[in-house]
Each structure stands twice: as C-alpha cells, then as structure tokens.
C-alpha cells in the first residue's frame, strides 16, 4: 500500500515544481495533452521500477512507447511540423510493435515467462526515485525557461525518465530487465528530444533507431550465450572480473 501512496505523490511533486504550470487553464488543448502524457510517462516509470515480473515489464515498456507516440503526435499537431509525424510513425513501429514483440519472443524462447525478481525494498526505491525527479527538475529549471510554451516543464520529466531508467538498470539483476531499463532510458531521451526541440533531425533519429534495434538483437543473442555459460540469466553470477 505504501508503494501506491508514493505513486500518487510522484506526479504531484513533479507538477508543483514545474514552472509555467500555474497558468494551466489558459493553455491550449494540445499543450495540456502533452503535459498529461508527460505525467503518465512519469507514472509508468515508477510502475516499471516496482514491477517484479519480466513479462509485465515489457508490457509497461510498450505502453511507454505508445504514450511517446501520442506525445509526438500532439507536439506535431501543435507545431505543424510534418517531420514529427514521421518520427511518431518510426517510434510506433519500433517501440510499440517490433521491440516488444522481439522481447516477448525472446522471453518465451528462454522460458522466462514466470521469472520474477525479488526486489526487497520497493518503498525505498520509490523514495530514491522521487528524489531523482526533484533533482531532474532542479537541473532542468535553467534550461526549461528557454523552451516554448507547449513544452515547458516537460524537459524536467524527460530527464527524470532517463534517471529513473538508470536507477532501474542499477537495481535489477536479471539481464532482460536491464535491457528493458536501457530501452526505457532511450525512450526518455526521445521524449526529451521531442519535447524540447520538436525532435532531432530525421537522419539522426533513424540512426538512433537503427542502433537500438541492432543493440537489442545483439543482446538477444547474448541472453542465450549467458544462459548457456552461467545456467541462468541472473547477473549476480557475473562477478569474476573485479576492479583490481
């Protein structure tokens, strides 16, 4: 229950420290929509942080991708930028369809459907997460004031998404979960790009997409190699190489 309570407080902390949100009623619909999506993305990040089952983690990742598509479309609509629709289509294809499918297939073939992780202190994790969100907003404050009306405040959330995914990668021990964390981090970066700058140049976005896709394929092969060598996808067994 305490985890749920913390869930509720996370977006609240986000909203109260975001500049420009006091004028909420005066904002156009698309802007309000972007803010809503940003808040939902943040909520999803916390849900991922607390999710034990690997399969559900992939579903949450797909949901995150879908929200990202929605936000990109909203930004594209409000700025009238045609290139952003292409970017949204690319995200839809890669983050909502291809990557979750690939990950689900991998999990099935690894017989890891029922894999769960024993995350002992989820409440502590959530509190650290909230501290990260506050830190992100403080860091983004000097930058956000240069952003356009529609996207002000979302840069802080984008940075928070990156840092929360980072936290997830640190605390997870399962290889698949670490990769989902890596992809979630990439989602956060993409959100930063769309919200702050109306998307990176198309060539760059396609390059990033290609890198991510290739990366996941390579890691997919790795899963099998790791399991073959270590008899488990648990990275705790990987502690032979030490810093000395």
């Amino acid at each position, binding site marked *: 229950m305490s985890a749920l309570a913390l869930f509720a407080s996370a977006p609240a902390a986000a909203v109260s420290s975001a500049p420009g949100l006091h004028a909420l009623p005066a904002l156009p619909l698309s802007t309000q929509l972007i803010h809503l999506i940003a808040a939902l993305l943040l909520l999803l990040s916390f849900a991922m942080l607390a999710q034990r089952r690997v399969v559900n983690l992939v579903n949450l990742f797909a949901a995150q991708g879908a929200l990202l598509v929605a936000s990109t479309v909203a930004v594209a609509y409000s700025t009238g930028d045609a290139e952003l629709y292409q970017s949204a289509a690319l995200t839809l294809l890669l983050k909502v369809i291809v990557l979750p499918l690939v990950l689900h297939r991998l999990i099935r073939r690894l017989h890891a459907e029922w894999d769960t992780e024993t995350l002992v202190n989820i409440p502590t994790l959530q509190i650290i997460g909230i501290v990260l969100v506050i830190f992100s907003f403080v860091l983004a404050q000097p930058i956000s004031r240069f952003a356009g009306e529609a996207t002000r405040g979302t840069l802080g959330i984008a940075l928070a998404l990156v840092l929360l995914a980072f936290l997830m990668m640190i605390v997870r021990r399962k290889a698949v979960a670490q990769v989902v964390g890596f992809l979630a981090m990439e989602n956060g970066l993409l959100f930063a790009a769309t919200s702050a700058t109306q998307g990176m*140049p198309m060539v760059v976005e396609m390059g990033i997409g290609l890198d991510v896709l290739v990366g996941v394929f390579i890691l997919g092969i790795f899963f099998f190699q790791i399991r073959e060598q270590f008899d488990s996808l648990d990275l705790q067994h990987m502690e032979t190489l030490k810093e000395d």
Partner: protein
Amino acid sequence: MELLIVLAIPLLGAAVLAFVGQRGFAPQVNLAFSAATFAAASVLTARVIAQGPMRVFAEQFFIDPFNVFFVALTAFVGMTTAAFSQPYMRIEQDRGRLTAARLRLYHSMYQAFMFTMLLALTTNNMGILWVAMEAATLTTVLLVSLYRTKASLEAAWKYFILCGVGIALALFGTVLLYFAAERVLGHAGMNALLWTRLDAVKGRLEPGIIGIAFVFLLVGYGTKVGLAPLHSWLPDAHAEGPTPVSAVLSGLLLNVALYAVMRSKVLVEGSLHAFWPAQMLMAFGLVSVLVGAFLLWRQKDVKRMFAYSSIEHMGIITFAFGMGGPVANFAALLHMTGHALTKSAIFYTTGHASQKAHSQRIEDIQGLREQSPALGWGLMIGVLAIAGMPPFSVFASEFLILTTAMQQQPWATPILLLGLGVAFGALFLRGQGMVFGRSSLRELSHAPNMAPVFVHLALVLLLGLWIPQFLVSWWHTAAAMIGG
C-alpha cells in the same frame, strides 16, 4: 570523393567478409581492405594538407587538419593490426578457441568497427557522431565477446551496459546542444546540428544550456575515453577480447571518443567564455593518471595491466587538452600518436607472448627474449617507449606537457610527475620480468608477423628524434583549431 572511398571501403569490406570471413584467404582479404582504406585515407590527408579544410555532401561531412589527423592514424593502425591479426587469429583457430563462424564474425565486425570510427571522425553532424559512436560500441561488444567464455561475456555485458548508459548521457547532451542551436539557427532541420554551423554561431549559443550540455557530453563520451572514475569497463574489455581488438580499442577507439569530447569543448568554450570546462577536463585527466598508474601495480593479467596504462595515458592527453593553448594541444596530438602506435605494438607482442605461455598471467610469461628474441626485444622497447623513456616520442610529448604545466598549472605538475613515476616503475618491473629470465615458453603454430611491431616502434622513435616539417605545421594548424 576521396572521403566517400575512405568510408565505402570498410563498409564494403564488412559486407564481403560477412560472407567469406571464415575462408582461408579471409585474413588476406581483411588486410587488403584495411590497406585500401589506408591508401584512400592518405590521399585524403594529402589533399586536406594541400587545399585546407573541406565540406562535402551538402556539408554533412567536414574534414579539417584536426580530424584528418585521426583519420590517417586510424586507417594506419587499422591496417597494421589487420596484418598482425593474420597469424594471431590462425593460432587461436588452431587451438580451437574460435569456430569458423566466429572467425567470420570477427573479420566482418573488424571492418564494420573501422567504418563506424571513420564515420564518427568525418561527420559534420553531432547527431551522426553520436550514432557512429554507439554503433562502434555495438561492433566492439561483439568483438569483445568473441570467445564466448564466461569472462568474455561478462566483460562484454559490462562494456555494453556502462558504455550504453554513458553514451545515452551524451545523447541527452546532444539534444540540449540541438535545443540551443535551434534558438540561434532557427528550425534548420538537420543543419542545426552541423558542427561547422554551430562553430560559426558559438558566441551566440545560450550559455546556460550549453554548459549543462557539455557536462552530459563530457561524462558520456568520457566513459568511452575511459576517464576515471568511469573506466571500469575498459580493463575487462581489453583483457577478455582477442588481442587485435585490444590493440584497436586502446589505440583507436579511445582517441575517437576523445575527439568527440574535443569537438564539444570547442563549441562550449566559444559560448561560455569560462574556464570551468577546461578545468573539468584537467581534473578528469589527473584523476585518470593517478588511478591508472596506481592500479598498474596490482595487475596480474598482462593485458589488464596495459589497459590501465591506457587509462593513464588518456588521462595525460585529456589533461593536456584541458590546459589548452598551442603548445599543450600540439603535445597532446603528438602524445595521442605516440600512444596509439606504441600501445598497439605492445598488444601485438603481448598477444603472441600469452599465446606462447598459454596464459595471460604475467607470472606465467617469463623469458620471452630467450625463446623468441624478436618478440622479447619488441616488448622491451615498447615498454620503455610507453613508460616515457627518451628518445621515444612519448617522452617528447610528456616533456612538453610537463613544462607547459609548470608554467600554466604549476599545482598539477607534482601530481603528473607522481603518476608518471609510479607507472614507470610498474611497467619497467613487470616488463623486465616478462622479457628476461628463464623461459618456459613454447613454439607457435604460425610464425608471428613482427613487421607491424617494429614499424610502429620505428615511427615512435622517429617522432621522438625528429618530426617532419609537414607534420609539425599540420599539427600546429590542428592545435590552433582546438584553441583553448
């Protein structure tokens, strides 16, 4: 046009070797592609020296004396490493450490890795630079995990996760850079990330954004440079991958990552007019020197030891770039060249030495000179050169960096001297132990190719004694471009 050829050859090589990489003639094909890349890079270099900087393909690529220097160095070491890997990988295959499919993967990824580095060096687009760096990470992850042993999988995983996180931070920095650029250049699409455009308006970029962007870029690309405390992937990746991969990681990839940092620094300094970016570089550099030097003493694995030595040297170079100014920049470029050539030569010799000993442990490698004089002396000379003994070029550049530090940053001189001294002691002691003493080493199934080792060492010696005039003026131009 030359540029297109430089990029096309390794890409074509990767495609061709993806099909024939397991055949008996594949190492020769690999060498041929690498040599062709070097030939094309030489033509490109000659043209840039003669005609000055050029922008090609709607400004998407930009070649100036600064990056063409890296292109030439990358293509050269790429070629010699391909020559070294010919007998080395055959021996590995004879010993059953590699299947034919893995060998094919190795050859194809080697060329793909060359392509990504050359793309990162020549692109004018800061976004493409990021994409190429990430692609370089992916190709090397496959190369590091080539043996598929527990340790190599662990090293590759660690490498991927750490560099993946690091490079994600660099992407955030790039997004912020784009954000700042759009405010000045308007919604210029893909042109807003062109380095030349950014360089032209760097005085008008919003300092508040650029400052934060630089922190992300430095930490992100700095992870790939192996700057302490972000270095922990580096020794594992060097030790567990095949030796040719260690040589190109140390000699080339770290340089390319540092190149990305320097491109960012030029923009930041033009925008901020503050000293803190330079101070951050110097601090990261000094910490790396100390961490690298002291951890050298604790190493039992020969490749890990030289990996820590790479951390130390990247620290020296980063410190020199941080000091800035024509002399320090010149010294840093000279040091990069000296380090790339010497360190790869050392990896060539230690690779064969550990094949002879059937072990990478330093205590198992004894009396290399007795069993194989060429390898033994090659390693000894390499160790002396990398430890900074005169008359090699590493000594000359370290001397220049130290004297500049005494004038500009006197506080840093004792720290540098301490690091250099500690590293010298460790390298000399361990190197001597491996080269001299009673030998228990065995013969190899293929004779090692010693030409790359001695060509590299001869070049390092030459650069220490006398730097050709064209090289001096070339580096001076490059050093002036980085400013500081």
